[in-house]
């Protein structure tokens, strides 16, 4: 009985951690991509011929 109780706890925490971990990573990737694209856009704007004028 003790083994089953422990097993359910382990499974519940494990499944939650997998989903939370990958959700966090997905969120982190979205934020990272946003800032990377922002930085790329700013670089393009700065290096475009119009900005020299």
């Amino acid at each position, binding site marked *: 009985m003790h*083994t*089953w109780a*422990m*097993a359910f*706890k*382990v*499974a519940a*925490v*494990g*499944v939650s*951690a*997998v*989903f*939370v*971990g*990958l*959700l*966090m*990573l*997905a*969120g*982190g*990737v*979205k934020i*990272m*991509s946003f800032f*990377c*694209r922002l*930085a*790329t856009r700013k670089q393009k704007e700065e290096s475009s011929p119009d900005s020299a004028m």
Partner: protein
Amino acid sequence: MELVQTVIANTGFVHLTIGHVIMWFVGIFFMYLAIKKDFEPLLLVPIGFSIFLVNMPITPLTGKGELIYIFYHYGLEWEVIPCIIFLGIGALTDFGPMIANPKMLMLGASAQLGVYVAFFGAILLGFDIKEAASIGIIGGADGPTTIYLTQSLAPQILGATAVAAYSYMAMVPLIQPPIMRLLTTEKERKIRMAHFRPVSKTERLVFPLLATALICLLVPAIAPLIGLFMIGNLFREVKGVGRLLKTAQEELLNIVTIFLGLSVGSTMQAENFLNPQPIFIFFLGLIAFAASTVTGILLVKVMNLFLKEKINPLIGSAGISAVPMAARVSQKVAHEYDPKNYLLMHAMGPNVAGLIGTAIAAGMFMSMLK
């Protein structure tokens, strides 16, 4: 006369048992799968031959200080080989499709549910909780993670779990397609997915650092595997480390693959292996694998209820960690129904997400059970 008797007593013939001969056939069977059927020959040839070799009686191979024992002790018991394999896999992995569409990470998560199905199945069959965790992780279809976890929690079943994991990884093209066809309609199999956006070099460079930080903070136990995986991936994206990348992808990966195969095969000696336990482990491994395929596909079907742009459910099965085989299987099955449907790069997203998902699942088992 006495000398002749001594010589005869020191031959393997006198010590040969039926168990040894059975294991020879097991080794030959794995080599047959590798050579004739082309099932993961890089792994099954050294594993199969090692099984054959170590079941030669009274050979100085697996005793303390002997050749294959040294590979096993320093490679597997010290958990070095799985980490270096992950370095090589990271160097070979393209995270672009996953970075372009981070939703795919959820498919990698859902495919890990099969791990827990087998976990409970193993407890039901009488395995203790640590052994059950080591058997369950086979469902992630990730050989190095299976070895890493099993060595940590239940080293006494390392041989069976490692061989089961690599055998099922090799049999992905056989096991998955019938399940994929059973769970999807023809209309769903023909869903075409939009091209994903191009991913910048900066994103590819930042991703390994981001992933290392998030995963190691969440599950510190898995830092050796994830850390080496991500540094391998960083080598792939950084200009100027071409030599390191080439070594990680080729020479180093090939060397440790040889030692891995020999070490894993060496755990399958007749006296340890010929009992009902490995048969249960193989059976549970198959359940784990099939359940992971099922849960991956089912999550896509659930997600499609809420998404405007539908995901082809065939890529859900690629959420297991058999990179890139599972992604290729998704492409192949889709191709049967629509030759112009190119799913491979879309399937790589969940495929690589599955690698991370399995590592997190293993890390949580270690945190709670070690």
